[in-house]
């Protein structure tokens, strides 16, 4: 069984690596952010599998923390003061 857990965890890690292409490509900031969100879900799955494979359920606590916190970065992203709009006006003043 342990072999299966590890094999699945390995494949999931690979999907994160492949998904990184979306972060690199973009094209918009929103695309990048949404890819990071997908990694959160995958990481939770990997941690649950690793916890089961090593029979160390303390690892599940790490998964629980990710589950609780993955929304925070994305929520900040949508709620932050829009830098593009503020820089547009600032930019005309201090263009060098």
């Amino acid at each position, binding site marked *: 069984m342990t072999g299966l857990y*590890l*094999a699945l965890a390995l494949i999931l*890690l690979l999907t994160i690596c492949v998904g990184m292409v979306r972060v690199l490509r973009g094209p918009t900031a929103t695309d990048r952010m949404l*890819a990071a969100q997908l990694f959160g879900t995958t990481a939770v799955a990997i941690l649950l599998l690793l916890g089961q494979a090593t029979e160390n359920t303390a690892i599940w606590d790490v998964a629980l923390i990710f589950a609780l916190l993955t929304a925070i970065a994305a*929520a900040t992203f949508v709620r932050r003061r829009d830098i593009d709009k503020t820089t547009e006006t600032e930019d005309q003043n201090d263009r060098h």
Partner: protein
Amino acid sequence: MIDLVLAFDLILMTTLISLAWLLLASRDLFRAVVLFIAFGLLLALAWTRLGAVDVALAEAAIGAGITGTLLLVGLGKLGSAERCRRTPRPTTFLQRLTPAVLIGIIIPSVTIILLLELRQLQIVSSGQQGLVLSLLDISGTDHPVTAVLLNFRAWDTLLEKGVLLLALVSIWSLDQARPLFHQEAPSPVLKGLSQLYLPILVIVSGALLWQGGYAPGGAFQAGALLSAGILLAILGGRSLLPAWYGMPLRLLAGCGLLIFILIAAATLLAGNLPLQYPQELAGALILLIEIVATVSIAVILAAAVAGGHPAEISATEQQQPPSSEGTS
């Protein structure tokens, strides 16, 4: 099965190093921030693979809960610097090739060579592990990491609290805090999430603090989680009471260091070395320090994200109508 573990570790290491390179070399700062969030995620995986679940918990709480917000808010302050990416420099073929070669060939091969070499090494000594485990009975806790952090090497932890406080004081001396987010009310969905997750975050954080006595967990993990909770509350549209910005905030931020110093002084007066707890009180003292430190760490980390002196927030908010965007 060993091969599966090896393959997992290899890919994890290669990805971590490549990500580190990519995010440092990224000209688009927003991209760098998202890469850093992904980096933190994989780093937490790496810590669990190294058997350091304590560190993984802290990395998960800090990486997912605080760093992302800290960097995104910081990015807003770097407005004009971020404009630089829109004036692309002409790149030669060679310049474009270098990162690809680095990430595709050099980093993986160096990692593989290093890993293979490392596997040849014999572990000569397990460090102080035996010593710590033999003294665990008198430490006042059942988790070796907690025993080291709060008893055997409590001095280090005291100084760490000092460093955190110093960092906050430096941030406060640099700038005045500005409202982190849009003044307009958040989406009801975000509000609902915040209301639902906040109590759960509090309880998980308390559970982590308690677990520190016998399993991975402890004050830093609990504090980091709690500070993420504070951020989530602000994101969900709650505002902190301005009455708290003055003395209460300072006291809460400083109490972690203060309790340490008080206990050090008390042990000194009792004729022991500083922070050399009497054996029968060790458990209670450790618990007391951890509870106070949790609150202190939570407040310091959350205040650090605000990025400036908080007293000013109440002043500017009172002066200006909430609808205006004009603090910058």
